[in-house]
Structure formats: structure tokens, C-alpha cells
């Protein structure tokens, strides 16, 4: 034991005198302190908090064990918000990826003005979600919004989007698709450009039509890219918050109360910090499981390279 310790000590001393250790400490220390204080420690602290009943102010922190989790898992709010989040996730993932693929395919036809189109479709990605949500809220305004006034002028009676429990979520999803499309397009475009032309030439010689080439060459070769985009879209959807805060505040009737908003409501409106922390861990658990399942399903053996 002692000999073992001494050998470790000797190795460290050697590293210190002749190796990279001093440089490594200088390089890593600032990052490690900040990262430790605001990332790693909070993760552990959050686990502890989720076992407490505490408002964050009073000295009385009551240790309640797993009661927060038990209560949470039997609450209507959690299951509602999970359902709402999955609805949002499904909409944004399916529509966003389909739209991104269509645009990328069109752009990949050796079209002129590629960088112009790319910039146009990508601008929503870098636009702030808060600002975008304010604009979309106005687009969907029943009195003077562009959508409803336009639909009315061609004789369609449009719903009162954001105050309808049925139509609020589709409106929020449309904003999500609008903001995500450009990102999916850029990644797909990079994927399409990495498919060798010889594959298509060979298929043409064999008499494969446009659809067959797409179905049997493009789509399978893009599947690692698609997997990457699905995972990213799913994870990002679980974190959605800003547009809900601006557009609907979780309403009407909790129909847009995604899980991130539920956590915010419990933590910073009701000050149930322990309970809200357990919501955070449920989010983590769901994301973790979804990621594992996706890796399993698609076989993560092959490296995703875009």
C-alpha cells in the first residue's frame, strides 16, 4: 500500500518537474473552477434539493426523502406537461425534419444563388426566440394579425389561435418548425454533398428512376444524419421555454404547459424548490432514456459524421 502511494507520488513529482503537469494546471484551473461551481456542483446539489421541502428563503429545510418524486409522479400536472411536450416534440421533429430535407434536396440540385437561399432559410435559427415569439403572437392575433385577416379575406373563419386549447399548440409548433427548418437544412445539405455521384450514375445505368434513386440511395445514406437531427430535435424540444413564456404562458387550460415551463412555475412562482428540482430530474431521465433507445434502434456503432 505504502509502496503504491510512494510510486504515485514519484510519478507525480516526475510529471511536475519534467512533464506537462504545471502547464495543465494553469490551463485547466480557471475553467475547472467555474465549471465546477456552476455546472458540476449544481448537478449534485440539485439531487440533494430534490429530496427537500424548501421555499429557498426560510431556514426550515425539511428532508422528505423521495416524497417529491412520489407526489410528482402521481400529479396531473406532470403527465399533462409530458403529453404536451411530446406533442410539441413530435410536431417540430417530424415537420421540421421533413421540411429541412425538402429544402436541402431542392438546394442540392446545383441551383444558382445557393448561399442566398441558405442565408434566408437560416436567419430564423439565429433570431432570438423571444423576439420571434412576439412577432408570431401578432401574426396569429385574431383581430389584426396577418394570418386571420388573410384567411378572413378568402372566406375562411380562422380560430382564435392562442386562446384556444386546441389551436394554441399548433401555432407554437409552427413557430418551432420555422425556427428549426434552417438548421436541419444545413446539416442535410452537408450530408447530401457527401454522397458520391457514382452511386447515382450507377443507379441510372441500371434504370432507376428519380424516386427509386431517392428511396434506395439518398434516404438510406442520409439515415445517420437523420438520426442525429432527430436526437437533437427531441432534446431541444424538451428544453423549450421562451416561446411558451411569451406566447401563451402555458395556457389556455395548461394546453401548452411544456415540462420546462412547469419547472419554472413551481420554482419561481410557487417557490417549491425541492419539488421543482425533482421535475428537473424527470426531464433528465426522459432525455436519457430516449437517447439510449435511439442509439439502440439505429445502432450507434457507425460514427455520425456530417
Amino acid at each position, binding site marked *: 500500500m505504502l509502496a503504491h502511494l510512494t510510486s504515485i507520488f514519484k510519478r507525480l513529482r516526475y510529471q511536475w518537474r519534467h*512533464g506537462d503537469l504545471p502547464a495543465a494546471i494553469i*490551463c485547466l484551473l480557471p475553467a475547472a473552477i467555474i465549471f465546477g461551481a456552476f455546472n458540476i456542483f449544481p448537478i449534485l446539489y440539485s439531487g440533494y434539493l430534490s429530496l427537500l421541502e424548501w421555499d429557498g428563503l426560510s431556514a426550515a429545510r425539511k428532508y422528505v426523502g423521495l416524497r417529491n418524486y412520489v407526489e410528482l409522479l402521481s400529479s396531473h400536472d406532470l403527465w399533462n406537461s409530458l403529453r404536451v411536450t411530446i406533442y410539441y416534440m413530435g410536431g417540430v421533429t417530424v415537420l421540421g425534419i421533413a421540411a429541412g430535407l425538402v429544402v436541402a434536396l431542392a438546394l442540392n440540385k446545383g441551383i444558382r444563388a445557393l448561399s442566398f*437561399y441558405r442565408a434566408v432559410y*437560416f436567419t430564423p435559427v439565429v433570431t432570438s426566440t423571444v423576439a420571434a415569439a412576439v*412577432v408570431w403572437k401578432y401574426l396569429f392575433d385574431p383581430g389584426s394579425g396577418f394570418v386571420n385577416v388573410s384567411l378572413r379575406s378568402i372566406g375562411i373563419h380562422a380560430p382564435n389561435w392562442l386562446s384556444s386549447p386546441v389551436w394554441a399548440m399548433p401555432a407554437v409548433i409552427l413557430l418551432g418548425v420555422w425556427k428549426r427548418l434552417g438548421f436541419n437544412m444545413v446539416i442535410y445539405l452537408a450530408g447530401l454533398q457527401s454522397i458520391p455521384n457514382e452511386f447515382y450514375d450507377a443507379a441510372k445505368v441500371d434504370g432507376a428512376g428519380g424516386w427509386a434513386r431517392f428511396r434506395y440511395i439518398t434516404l438510406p445514406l442520409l439515415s445517420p444524419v437523420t438520426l442525429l437531427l432527430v436526437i437533437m430535435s427531441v432534446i431541444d424540444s424538451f428544453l423549450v421555454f421562451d416561446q411558451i413564456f411569451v406566447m401563451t404562458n402555458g395556457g389556455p387550460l395548461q394546453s401548452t404547459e411544456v415540462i420546462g415551463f412547469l419547472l419554472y412555475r413551481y420554482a419561481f412562482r410557487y417557490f417549491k424548490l425541492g419539488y421543482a*428540482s425533482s421535475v428537473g430530474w424527470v426531464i433528465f431521465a426522459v432525455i436519457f432514456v430516449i437517447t439510449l433507445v435511439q442509439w439502440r434502434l439505429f445502432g450507434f456503432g457507425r460514427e455520425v459524421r456530417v
Partner: protein
Amino acid sequence: MSQHDSVSQLSAAIVWQLERKVSRWLPKTFFHTLLLAGGFVVVLPFMWMITTSLKPLKLTYSPPYLFPTHFEWHNYVIAWKAAPFLRFYLNTTIMAVSIVTGQLILCSMAAYAFARLKFPGRDLLFLVFLGTMMVPFHVTLIPSYLIVKWLGWIDTYQALIMPRLVSAFGIFLLRQYFLTIPTELDEAALLDGCSRLGVLWRIILPLSQPALSALAIFSFLFAWNDFLWPLIVTNDPLMRTIQLGLAMFQGKYGTRWTYLMAGTVTATIPAIIVFLIGQKRFIEGIALTGLKG
């Protein structure tokens, strides 16, 4: 033989020629039409925003239009008087510039240690950094808020800046790039008596300009557009960032759309300008890493 035959031959030739032309031009036209139509839908909210911000208030309830015909610049004056947008700009700029600077310095130092230096526990430490990328922001939100409160940092710039000076994403991005630089260059410099930190400064960083500028744009846009963290660590209206200020402005002037849109244009323009300037590098950076900031 007969006239009939040659006519049909001629017309067949014309049809064939036409078909060839059409088959060459039709797809291109079709795709341009498709892309323009889609692009119009994508741009529509921006046009709606800008046009409304320049509309006289009394036209709010008359038929909508997408191209600005009135130029009521006064809306901006009113919006900027109703909320301290200048102050929001200042706060956000201080925050964003500090975050970008910190990320560039601290992430490149850490990435250099992970990519080039040999020390015990390196791979484990790197794994810990990477592992935190899997943990969603929601888990750390409440504890981070409590730490900031405990430090007495509510309503300060430190609260907005410090927790975001380092990111696992930035370290990962730079490390991957550093690994593509040949180690022979380092070794040559070390032989010539350059220190290890000197290698980072003189060899690695100058060669990593594309990755560094991608990280700079990523972290600038992230900081400029961030909302939830500033929302919970500031109460004082004078400490608000631009997105937070806009959301509060929206709560107050909910239906006076012309002023609200003037505020929205104010909040979006700087980020869009930064994107358009760095567009090429930024998009390449995304395609390269397949990751998002």
C-alpha cells in the same frame, strides 16, 4: 415519300428539341419556384415585423400589408422612450462581449490541455466535462440560482456572465479542432525552446482561427438571445438584457403592436447583423461539428 411523313418527322424533331429544353429548364424553374415560395413564408414574419414597426398606429386595424408604404420612424422614438432600450443594449453588450472573451480564452486553454498535454486523470476529467453536456439546463437552473443568490450576485453583471464563461461545448469544439493540427509543429517549437503555453499561443491558436471564430459567433448569439437565465437572476429593470426587456415591454404594451414591433426590431437587428457578417463561417462551423450552441 409523302409530304405527310416529312411534316410528322419535322414536328417530332421539334417536339424532341422542346422536350430536351424543357427537361433541362423545368426542374430548375420548379426548384426555384419551390425555394422562393418557401423562402417567402420564412421571410414573412420578418416583413410583418418591419412593416408594422413603421406603420402609423391608427392603421393597425386596417387591412394588413407586407411591404412598408408608410415610414413612421417616430414609433421607434416612442418605443425607446417607453422602455430603456439603450440600457438594455448596454447590459447585453457587456454580457455578450464578456462571455465571448471568456469562452475564447478559457475554452481554448482547457481544450489545449485535453488535446495536447499529458497528465494523470486527463481522460477521466474530459469525460466528466463531456458528460455534463447530457444533463439538461433545467437540472442546474435552481441550484445555480441559489448559488448566485448566496453570493449576493442577484442584479449584477457577474450573475449574467460568470456561470457562462466556460462551456463543455466550446471545449469540445476546440479540442476536436486542435487534434487536427499536426503535432510535429508543437514538437519543433518545443525543441526550439518554446514553453508549452507558448505553443498554445504561437502555434495552436493562430492555426485555429476558423474554430475560434465559429465559437465566437456561437457564444455571441447564445448570449444575445438568452432569456431564461437573465430572467431569474435579475429583478431590477435597469439590469435587464434586451430579450428580457422585450418580453417585459410586451407584457406592458401588449396590443400597441406598432411600438411593440419597433422594440422587436431593436432586439433582433444586432444578432442578425452578426450572423450575416459571419454567415459563411458560422454555417460551415455547424455543418462541421453537427452541433449547435
